């Protein structure tokens, strides 16, 4: 049962990633791309968590935690760049 659920959710997350990638590539505006990139981070967190559930391992939770944290920082950096140019002022 769990196996089927994992397969289906993996598929859905992959689909989401593909859509995100399309948005990153197509744009058209810079904020579009940044939002898409941030969503990609979120979706990859989901993928890694599911992978961890599948392997029954706690280790992947931490990788997900780091992606959440560092992905946030990099999104902030790009946004700050758009707004102010100089990200550390």
């Amino acid at each position, binding site marked *: 049962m769990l196996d089927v659920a994992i397969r289906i959710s*993996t*598929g859905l997350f*992959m689909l989401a*990633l*593909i859509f995100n*990638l399309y948005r*990153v*590539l197509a*744009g058209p505006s*810079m904020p579009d*791309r*940044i939002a898409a*990139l941030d969503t*990609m*981070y979120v979706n*990859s967190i989901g*993928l*890694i968590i599911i*992978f961890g559930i599948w392997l029954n391992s706690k*280790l*992947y939770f*931490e*990788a997900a*935690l*780091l*992606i959440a*944290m*560092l*992905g*946030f*920082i*990099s999104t*902030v*950096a*790009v946004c*700050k*760049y*758009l*707004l*102010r*140019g*100089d*990200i*550390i*002022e």
Partner: protein
Amino acid sequence: MTLLLIVLLPLLGTLVPLIGIRAGRTYCAWLTALLPAVALGITLYLAPLVFSGNVPQFFLPWIPQLDLHLALRLDGLSLLFVLLILGIGLLIILYARYYLSEQDSMGRFYAYLMLFMTSMLGIVTSNNLLLLWFFWELTSLSSFLLIGFWSHQSDARKGARMALTVTGAGGLSLLAGFLLLGQIVGTMDLSVVLQSGDQVRSSPYYLYALVLILLGAFTKSAQFPFQFWLPKAMAAPTPVSAYLHSATMVKAGVFLLARMFPVLAGTDLWFYFVALTGLVTLLYGAYFALLKQDLKGVLAFSTISHLGLITMLFGLNSPMAAVAGVFHIINHATFKASLFMAAGIVDHECGTRDIRKLNGLWRYMPYTTALATIAAASMAGVPLLNGFLSKEMFLSESLDAHMLGGLSWLIPALATLGSVLSAAYSLRFIHDVFFNGEPKNLPKKPHEPPRYMRLPIEILILLCIVVGLFPSSTVSGLLNAAVTAVVPAGYEPEIDLAIWHGFNLPLLMSAIALGGGILVYALRHYIYNFHRQFRSQDPNVIFEASTQAIVRVAQQAIDRFENGSLQRYMFWLLLTALGFSAYGLIESPRLSGNLPAQSIDWAVAVGAGMLCLSGLATVFFHRRRLISLIMLSVVGMLVSLAFARFSAPDLALTQLAVEVVTMILLMLALFFLPQKTPKESSGRRIMRDVLLAGAFGGVVASLNYAVLTRPLQSISSFFLENSVPGGGGHNVVNVILVDFRGFDTLGEITVLGIAGLAIFKLLNRLKLFMPSSDMEGRPWSPERFPAILASMAQSLLPLALLVSVFIFLRGHNLPGGGFIAGLVAAATLILLYMARGVEWAQQRLDFQFQPIAVAGVLIATLTGLGSWVFGYPFLTSAFGHFHIPLIGDVELATALLFDLGVYLTVVGATLMILANLGKVTTPHRPSKEKR
């Protein structure tokens, strides 16, 4: 041990004059002379031992793998040369005290001189071929310094460079020859090599070894056609010429001939190469000595000529000729050194060395005239002086040479001709300079030199006369001892050093030489007129032209590859890598190995497709930098997903952390660059690059496939087995980083720390232009620090730091470690900087980042050094289990301390780079915007 002192004392002596010069010039000279004098005393103390047939030796292993040892020997030949080097060296030190002017740095001069003396002593006492070569090169270097001592003169610089080039090239050839010789004999030990003459001569490599070694000897001893550097080296101060170019350095070549005589001599090849080269040099030098107008030029060419004579004697393959050669080395050193010193006095007191201006000096310096006349008479071969004895031996040996068959009479005839010319230029040297009218337009009024400047010449002239009068009671002992080292055992000739051998052919030849010399001198104007037809060619010009041509060709070759274009470097690098790996793939019979292929995971396949797509997009958008950067972070994220999927959580964590920090760094730098790059590449160029990149990618992919489908025996099993028992950690990656390959990591964090410091220094006080709007012309947002972001960042900080500490602490056993933890901490602090600005952050983080980075490197180094305290090698780690109440069983390893060093370095260096880069614009922000 006493033997080592002979070489060691002058080496220590290089430091003496540098310190002693503070005590004044005279004291400096005396102090400098002290150590060589002690060495001379030691040599004299050892001399009776050598005379009785012993060979004192010294041995200290140096680099056994190369068969290079500090091995010294003092046989008769060495003894003779050591006495010459130290004895004449001491006289030169005295002479130079009065020769050098106030402007010359005496300390530096003496230091170079002592260095040269050491290397010369090393050559003659070495008992190891490689050690001998080592000292040989050292003489080239130290003579370069001495010849170029007056470095403000262009002549001196050029002469020094030429001497170094020629003798240095000869030295390389000598090294090759010695290596070959060592291969033939099987050892570099000179004592063994000297016993293996027959083995060497019958070896098929004999010819090559002979030619290479002779090239070394001939360049050093200025034999034809390498003679041109010696006259140019006369730009050196005269004490240097007297020491290097008459008594010692140029004798190193003939010393080598004498040293190698038992090993290489005795064949027809040896005769043709050595004797004929010597004969040509003898005549060439003598002829040009007659023509030169420069006092030192005459002496330089006469030295070339006499070196040719000695070389020829060694080439004649007879023991008696070798004796004559050794004897002439002594005699030439004494009379030529005194002649050089006399020339130096004339130059010093008259201000010129031009023979056309110098005339009739005997009225002004009668004493010097007398000394120079005796020395020149000895050079000409006048009886009752030492030069006569060896020259007569030379003439008599030339009669015994039959190697040229029916033309053998040429050898004594040409030898006599050489002696005639020798007598003629000796006469010219004396008559033109000291007699023959009155001096013309001298810059100074000549007078006798200081008393002690003449003393060295007097001592040498005394030797000339005493040896000339009583040869058998003075030098025959030394000569005997030297000859036993040169001539194979059992062939020692009976040395008969008498002035009078009765009326015989050599005496007649001597008489012809002297009479002919006077005649040639009388008719010299015909020779000058004859020679004037030839256009004289300055070897300097030819040498410089050829040097420049070589440099130009080399530069062109370099420019083809290294033209400063990064694209070009990448092109060559990839092309080379492509060539080699493609060749490797072509060599293997088939692409896939024996391992069965795994079933395709469709999620991975889709991910791989996305990875390719975003990689291509990065390149496609490369002219719009920000989009390209975003595509790059998509690539990074997908790669870390791939790492996670294939069970490498460590790598996934590292990849993520590095990705973010890199992105921030790039954006900081991007701000100062144009947002769009112009179109730079032509269509053809893009085509070329796409082809190369595609081919390279294809080859790497094939290579990967080939490797993955074959069973692989790697060293990873070692790490897996030893990680827990050896390093005390379950996380193999971390144990490798901090334990197995800890030394690598130490080097890496040191580099990181240095790079951080360098960037900090480079950015210091840098002011950069700041655009006032973004690329689409919109003004910057007026809100500097959005409140939501600020509060988010602040609340994230403690959590993130906790995560960082957690990852750091458990890194030894589970994914994590100092590097990742450090990057996480740095990224979080940077977030604070972004949200609150540099000013706010620095008020609260009131410490510098540089000390943190440095402390990190120090902690790691000290951890490594700590294992020395317990008697273990550098960076040995220790670990143990401790029970702490409430927390439980805890494992502590010294590796954790090392990892702490890594952590601190990463945090310190990263923040040092990013925060400082961010600070560049802060004080100069345009004030147009609203606050």
